[in-house]
């Protein structure tokens, strides 16, 4: 009887508990944030936007060292990468991207932020402008790689009717995508802050810099597209009509001028250090009051957002970890830096009669050149983190024979001596020995001089600069040149050149296409521009034509933009050992083709625009293929 009472009580208890079902079951989740929570709080919105910023797409970035140094501007001193110098071309799918998930997330952000009603107008406008900037930036990345793509500016919704074909959109014209980018910037620029100190969020400077670059790209595709008539699609998905070139160049020039004239904030060329090479490399690691950087991807130590670019590429000898030295800038690039009298010349390894030139100091052969050379490339005999890089290939004896070793800093006994001594640099170069300076050079640009940057447990917080002031000047120079204003072009170009120690100004008659192409290659080396520049000028298939290079070819026509560069070359310093001669202890240099370089790169017409995958075309048959694939 007692038991029955107990059961009754329990049932009663259960029922009375159950009365609060609604409250019990309908709770706020603790593991996700709801739309109402996010869209009423600017700080929450900023973190959503932060995710979108983090997904910004860069072709070349410090997060992936190979992408910064492709196309034989460097040899890759890592055993697993040699295959890239042994093949003869690029896959049609290389460089392809198609992340419409990212575009959808941005479109959803814009839709929801527009609907949010608890924000003040200024904050909301800024968020919306930033999202539209990110979307335009991704469409810019898409159009550079794939040509015209479907322009989706609203989040697409499937109605579960069983037929998703209404969601299929055809590719827009290439020019329409560029027009979209330019128009978006015009519409959002008034809503963004004018603040040169803000580097990692969109500012007026950042969007104008993007507009200037995009308009310049579109202009050059319009102008130079006619030289490769087979890289055109009839519907305009690839290729821009030539009559649009002037309009695009005008826009590129006016956007650049707004920045140059200070309307977007106090941007200027970085000029803080007396040593011009040190000054140039500081642009990339000096994050304090840097007036040159316009828009960057920033990193921060101990925050989880750091990168290992310095670990991958630091000089190997004495490095903080047992690795480094991967990017070895090629002689092709090194010799293209001008002499201080504005002329181009190969490095003088030999006299006109063919004998070696003897140099007292190992750095002498690089004297009187563009200061950007030593700012971009770590030359033999220069210093990093207080240590001189030890790059030399061996001893050359009086009879011309070589004594060298096959290990870093190997020791041997020289003839006439009794003790063993070092016969090759601790940084190489040793042919086929990974992480040594196999080309005779290491990279300097973007290397972080701070102690600890080369440790895997610490890494580096050096930023990656997406837009900087000197590129804006060069954009303006190129646009002005193409618009028939060489004097204006010379003014802008000379500013960039003077900062590099090339103080003798170029006259307007000296401004040519080759000059402009060279200036961009030298100033913007290893920043991801070289690839897109070659593509938009339609010279990639000439520079990378699949033919091999002989040492004789290498040193000719250095000033030409279309000079073949299908294989990276090396320059090896040797020390003379000849106690009876006045040349004892001096340096000679030899041009070397590394044994790992056996292929010659061929950039085909089908490489100008990356392949759109068959899976994408199967899902959306309205997408047409890129030409020549």
């Amino acid at each position, binding site marked *: 009887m007692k038991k029955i009472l107990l059961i009754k009580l329990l049932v009663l208890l259960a029922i009375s508990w159950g009365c609060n079902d609604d409250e019990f079951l309908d709770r706020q989740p603790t593991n996700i944030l709801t739309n109402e929570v996010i869209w009423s709080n600017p700080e929450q919105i900023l973190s959503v936007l932060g995710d979108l910023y983090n997904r910004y797409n860069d072709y070349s970035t410090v997060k992936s060292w190979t992408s910064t140094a492709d196309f034989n501007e460097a040899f890759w001193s890592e055993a697993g990468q040699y295959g890239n110098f042994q093949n003869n071309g690029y896959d049609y799918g290389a460089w392809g991207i198609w992340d419409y998930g990212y575009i959808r997330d941005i479109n959803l952000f814009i839709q929801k932020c527009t609907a949010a009603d608890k924000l003040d107008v200024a904050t909301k406008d800024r968020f919306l402008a930033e999202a539209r900037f990110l979307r335009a930036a991704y469409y810019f990345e898409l159009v550079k790689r794939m040509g015209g793509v479907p322009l989706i500016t609203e989040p697409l919704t499937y109605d579960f009717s069983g037929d998703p074909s209404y969601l299929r959109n055809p590719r827009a014209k290439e020019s329409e995508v560029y027009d979209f980018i330019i128009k978006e910037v015009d519409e959002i620029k008034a809503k963004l802050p004018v603040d040169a100190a803000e580097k990692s969020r969109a500012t007026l400077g950042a969007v104008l810099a993007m507009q200037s670059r995009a308009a310049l790209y579109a202009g050059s595709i319009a102008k130079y597209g006619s030289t490769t008539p*087979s890289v055109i699609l009839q519907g305009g998905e690839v290729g821009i009509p030539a009559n649009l070139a002037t309009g695009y160049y005008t826009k590129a020039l006016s956007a650049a001028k707004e920045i140059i004239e200070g309307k977007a904030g106090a941007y200027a060329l970085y000029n803080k250090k007396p040593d011009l090479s040190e000054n140039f490399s500081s642009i990339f690691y000096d994050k304090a009051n840097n007036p040159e950087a316009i828009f960057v991807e920033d990193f921060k130590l101990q925050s989880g957002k750091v990168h290992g670019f310095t670990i991958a590429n630091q000089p190997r000898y004495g490095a903080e970890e047992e690795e480094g030295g991967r990017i070895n800038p090629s002689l092709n690039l090194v010799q293209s830096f001008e002499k201080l009298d504005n002329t181009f010349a190969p490095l003088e390894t030999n006299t006109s009669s063919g004998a070696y030139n003897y140099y007292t100091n190992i750095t002498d052969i690089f004297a009187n050149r563009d200061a950007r050379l030593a700012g971009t490339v770590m030359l033999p005999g220069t210093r990093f983190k207080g240590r001189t890089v030890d790059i030399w290939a061996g001893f050359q004896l009086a009879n011309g024979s070589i004594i060298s070793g096959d290990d870093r800093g190997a020791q041997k006994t020289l003839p006439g001596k009794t003790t063993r001594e070092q016969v090759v640099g601790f940084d190489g170069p040793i042919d086929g020995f990974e992480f040594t300076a196999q080309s005779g050079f290491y990279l300097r640009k973007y290397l972080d001089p701070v102690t600890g940057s080369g440790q895997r447990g610490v890494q580096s917080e050096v930023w990656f600069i997406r837009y900087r002031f000197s590129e804006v000047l060069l954009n303006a120079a190129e646009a002005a040149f193409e618009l028939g204003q060489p004097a204006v072009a010379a003014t802008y170009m000379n500013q960039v050149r003077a900062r590099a120690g090339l103080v003798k100004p170029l006259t307007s008659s000296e401004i040519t296409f080759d000059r402009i192409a060279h200036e961009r290659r030298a100033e913007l080396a290893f920043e991801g521009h070289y690839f897109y520049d070659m593509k938009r000028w339609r010279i990639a*298939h000439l520079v990378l034509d699949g033919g091999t290079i002989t040492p004789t070819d290498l040193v000719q026509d250095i000033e030409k933009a279309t000079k073949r560069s299908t294989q990276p070359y090396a320059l090896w310093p040797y020390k003379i050992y000849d106690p009876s001669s006045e040349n004892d202890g001096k340096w000679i240099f030899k041009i070397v083709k590394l044994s790992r370089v056996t292929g*010659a790169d061929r950039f085909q*017409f089908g490489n100008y625009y990356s392949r759109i995958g*068959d*899976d994408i075309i199967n899902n959306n048959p309205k997408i047409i293929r890129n030409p020549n694939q």
Partner: protein
Amino acid sequence: MRLSIYSLFIAALGVFMASCSMDNYVAPNSDFKGRIVYKGEPINVEANQVRFQLWEPGWGKLAPIDVAITQEGNYSAVLFTGKYKMLFPKGEGPFMTNVINTTVKDTLYIDLKGSQTMDIEVMPYYMLRNASFSKGENKVAASCKIDKIITDANAKNIERVSLYINKTQFVSGANNIATTNIAGSAITDLSNVNLTVDIPTISPAQNYVFARIGVKISGVEDMIFSPVQKIQYK
């Protein structure tokens, strides 16, 4: 107990072994091969740089099978029996494809039942004929006749003629040890084009090289070549 665990293992092994052959398809076994020809003469190209595509319609998702063409103009593919559409991607090869009629344009329909040999006729811009090579003192001399095949509105000029030599039988712009070029504008007589190239020091030494002549046509990516010839020079 122990016995039953063993027997379980054995039973499992039996299942796994059996499934190995159960879910495998029969391998493709139809040989499809032939040559790319102009009126029966094979078109010599650079190895692995010219290809055509085979599409097999009727399946849900489409993806082409790429078939590469060898230096001598041969191709071969091992395929499943079926109906295929064959076409050259636009701009591929130093030739134009023959238009069959206005509906199918240049697409060939192939009904593959068992092995099949087929020569594919194309219209090259130029043909290299009568190539002859002779050895000299550390040099190779070559001559050939270049015939312009396409002479209508689609005709294209010669950008350059190149003589390549290599250590191995693969000879092209990408694979060579020495090259000589003549610009198209410098050629006066197409029926007698002469080139000479010096043989560089080869390490390790060998007493032969392979040579061939190629024609680069303006605005066309792939070159057309003469057949490769081995030259014994010592």
